[in-house]
């Protein structure tokens, strides 16, 4: 009985299917033609809510649905399995390994011939997005394409961060050198040996796994160079050079050695893992860190929730002496090698590109950035966007985001930054109406003392970038001598720099010399040659 009924049902279904496909043929509008895009992203994000309103709009408008897979476990292992099996999703976060394995298709002609918006979007950087070795574009960079100038009110980058309470205590000075900075910290720590009953920590340096750049990067800034990673680039000859074993680094670590002898550096700092670091930062007893803000931003959020605004931080653009101009901030950069690539398994690459092309329209960009007008944000009579107190609360609320934002797709997609053509800022926090309404009274007063409105103004406005900037985006090549040398240099830094800092001041020279000697055994030349070759390429072609 049951079987028979099943058969009837099946044949009915088949008929219905056939009919509907006839129907599909007769109606040639592309909108009814559903398509699914599979995406693999190298970040570990939560799956979007099935009722997410933005994805629903995309489905209604373009007939597109998305199937996400996020990274769980080790990236290289995952990519290794993928390339060995040759099974790829349609869209994938770019990785040099994928390019090398021939998993990605060249995009430059498809974009140039069919996608006017995308082409206009990348046109100013057309030579940058193409790979130096074969001249093809494999990746659509996600961030760094600014329209109408940079709109930053917030700052997530490098600096010597200091607690607002320290500056407030000594009459709102603005230290510009390393010596002044540590003087303030020393004085404050002597005056307040404990904060909330716990010992005050003068200075904390994170040195945990891949986050070890906190320990290794600062010397270049102190010498007035921008963030080029492991090298400094001469602004006139464009010659790149390792700095980790040079005098500009020695000077910084010598200073750290001195302040460590005075007890300003946390004893645990080099054995702390990231969680312990964040716990210290969130406790509000760390006076200074040489970090990038996005690393400890979450800890600062905790302090803000507890309304301990005086324990939050501002960045300082320290240099070795007053004659050096600080160069911590940089001009907007296209985020090379980060973003989607299209794989060889994708059946209709052009359709995806056309979708991205259509989504670059301001109407859609506003939906991705701000949401739905009247629901997620308001527009006043002058056409300015703002948020009501209830809407402000949803910012950063993860469960809310999974229902109302399309972050899983959008974060990696080609997108506008800066301003819309109507003058509103793309990012809500960079919109003055939003930024100032979420600023606390303490912060307003604090910034008022300096005559500024946001922490970013503590740093110099960035000069023009060198044409080859930044060197850290250079792809060293998988498994190349340059990459091995780079890993060895990192290992050496992680091993020796803590010893150098913690050594008794009398032993400093000896251990520094050991470090430099060990450096000489590494094939540094392979690394410098590769960097210089790419820099020359960039200078010529970008």
């Amino acid at each position, binding site marked *: 009985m049951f079987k028979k009924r099943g058969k009837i049902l099946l044949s009915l279904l088949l008929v219905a299917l056939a009919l509907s496909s006839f129907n599909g043929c007769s109606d040639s509008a592309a909108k009814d033609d559903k398509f699914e895009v599979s995406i693999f992203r190298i970040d570990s994000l939560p799956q979007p809510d099935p009722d997410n309103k933005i994805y629903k709009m995309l489905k209604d408008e373009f007939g597109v649905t998305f199937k996400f897979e996020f990274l769980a476990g*080790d990236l*290289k*292992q995952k990519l*290794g399995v993928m*390339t*060995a099996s*040759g099974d790829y999703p349609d869209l994938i976060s770019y990785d*040099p*390994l994928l390019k*090398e*394995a*021939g*998993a990605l298709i060249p995009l430059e002609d498809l974009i140039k011939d069919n996608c006017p918006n995308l082409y206009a979007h990348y046109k100013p950087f057309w030579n940058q997005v193409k790979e130096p070795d074969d001249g093809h574009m494999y990746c659509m960079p996600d961030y760094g394409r600014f329209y109408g100038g940079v709109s930053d009110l917030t700052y997530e980058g490098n600096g010597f961060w200091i607690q607002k309470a320290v500056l407030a205590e000594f009459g709102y000075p603005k230290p510009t050198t390393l010596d002044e900075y540590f003087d303030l910290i020393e004085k404050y720590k002597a005056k307040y040996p404990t904060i909330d009953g716990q010992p005050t920590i003068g200075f904390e340096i994170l*040195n*945990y796994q891949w986050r*070890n750049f906190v320990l290794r990067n600062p010397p270049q800034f102190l010498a007035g160079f921008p963030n080029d990673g492991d090298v400094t680039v001469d602004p006139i000859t464009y010659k790149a050079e390792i700095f980790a074993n040079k005098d500009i680094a020695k000077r910084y670590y010598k200073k750290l050695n001195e302040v460590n002898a005075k007890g300003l550096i946390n*004893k*645990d700092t*080099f*054995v*702390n*893992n990231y*969680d*312990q670091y964040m716990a210290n930062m969130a406790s509000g007893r760390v006076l200074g860190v040489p970090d990038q803000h996005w690393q400890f931003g979450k800890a600062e959020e905790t302090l803000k929730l507890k309304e301990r605004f005086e324990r939050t931080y501002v960045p300082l653009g320290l240099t070795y002496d007053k004659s050096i101009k600080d160069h911590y901030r940089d001009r907007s950069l296209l985020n090379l090698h980060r973003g989607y690539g299209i794989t060889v398994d994708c059946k209709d690459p052009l359709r995806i590109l056309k979708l991205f092309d259509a989504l670059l329209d301001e109407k859609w960009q506003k939906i991705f950035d701000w949401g739905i007008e009247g629901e997620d944000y308001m527009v006043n009579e002058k056409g300015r966007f703002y948020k009501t107190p209830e809407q402000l609360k949803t910012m950063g609320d993860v469960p809310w985001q999974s229902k109302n934002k399309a972050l899983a797709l959008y974060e990696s997609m080609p997108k506008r930054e800066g301003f819309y053509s109507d003058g509103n800022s793309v990012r809500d926090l960079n919109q003055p109406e939003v930024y100032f309404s979420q600023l606390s009274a303490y912060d307003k007063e604090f910034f008022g003392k300096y005559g500024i409105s946001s922490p970013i103004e503590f740093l110099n406005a960035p000069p023009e970038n060198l044409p080859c900037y930044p060197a850290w985006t250079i792809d060293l090549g*998988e*498994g190349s001598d340059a*990459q*091995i040398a780079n*890993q060895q240099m990192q*290992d050496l*830094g*992680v*091993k*020796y*720099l*803590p*010893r150098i800092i*913690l050594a008794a001041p009398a032993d400093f020279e000896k251990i520094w010399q050991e470090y430099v000697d060990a450096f000489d055994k590494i094939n540094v030349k392979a690394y410098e040659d590769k960097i210089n070759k790419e820099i020359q390429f960039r200078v010529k072609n970008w």
Partner: protein
Amino acid sequence: MAGFSSNQKLIKSRNIITLDVLKKQKQLIFMSAPLLVYIIIFAYAPMWGWIMSFQDYKPAKSFFDQQWVGFKHFEFLFTDPVFFNVLRNTICMSIINLVFSFVSAIGLALLLNEIKNIFFKRTVQIISYLPHFLSWIIVTGIVANVLSTQGIINEVLMKMGLLTEPVTWLSEEKYFWGIVGVSHVWKEVGWNTIIYLAAMSAIDPCLYEAANIDGANRYQKMWHITLPGIKSTFIILLIMNIGWLMNAGFEIQYLLGNGLVIDYSQTIDIFVLKYGIGMGRFSFATAAGVFKSVVSITLLLLANAVAKRVGEERII
């Protein structure tokens, strides 16, 4: 177990496989078939991949397009000064873990075996094996907190007056192996006792009764009955564990290690992750894997041979 009445004929016929024997054992053969298939698919077939270690393997190229490089990757492995350092760390930490875990597990099993109050015994057992179910990321988090300058270890030692100022335990090279060993014991001791307790429960109670009549005390019973009773289990586990000597673990050293102790914390697996897979050098990673396997098999065979020589249980 082999029975006391073993006659010569039976022993001899053991080595000759006849159709009759196969027929008699058909259920056993049938039952072992899936395992055999499993081993062929997941243990023998992947050994084909060892060929990669003689190539400069690039993903997505066919086998015939790969470039052959001979022993280049093995050369890199054996000439890198760091390699002998990580080899030493791996083996030393393995041995420390082996000794610690055997001593602690057998010790705890002996103690638990003496407890007559079932409720108390079960409670101790459950508490001691619960940490087994925690992942290393959690355990290392706990260890790092306990050992920090404001952690409980420093607090207690300072209150007792044994220390005048806190020690940063994780920054001292000389403590690292010990910390790893003790963390292993804390995490696994309860779990490891289970098998010994099982072996102890299989000991014939008559032996204890006879010993009682002969006037043996508790310690004598432990020494002369319980320990010999679990000896075969112990030897087999030891041989198997010697085969794992090249695997000192990865997570705990990776998560607890830091620059200050890197000369003592880095194991082969970490080295391979950094300089092999992490850079897409799959051939180099395979070469290290081949080396590890060869050493492991040699150690296993050696241990087995020694066990045979001294007349103990053995695996092969």
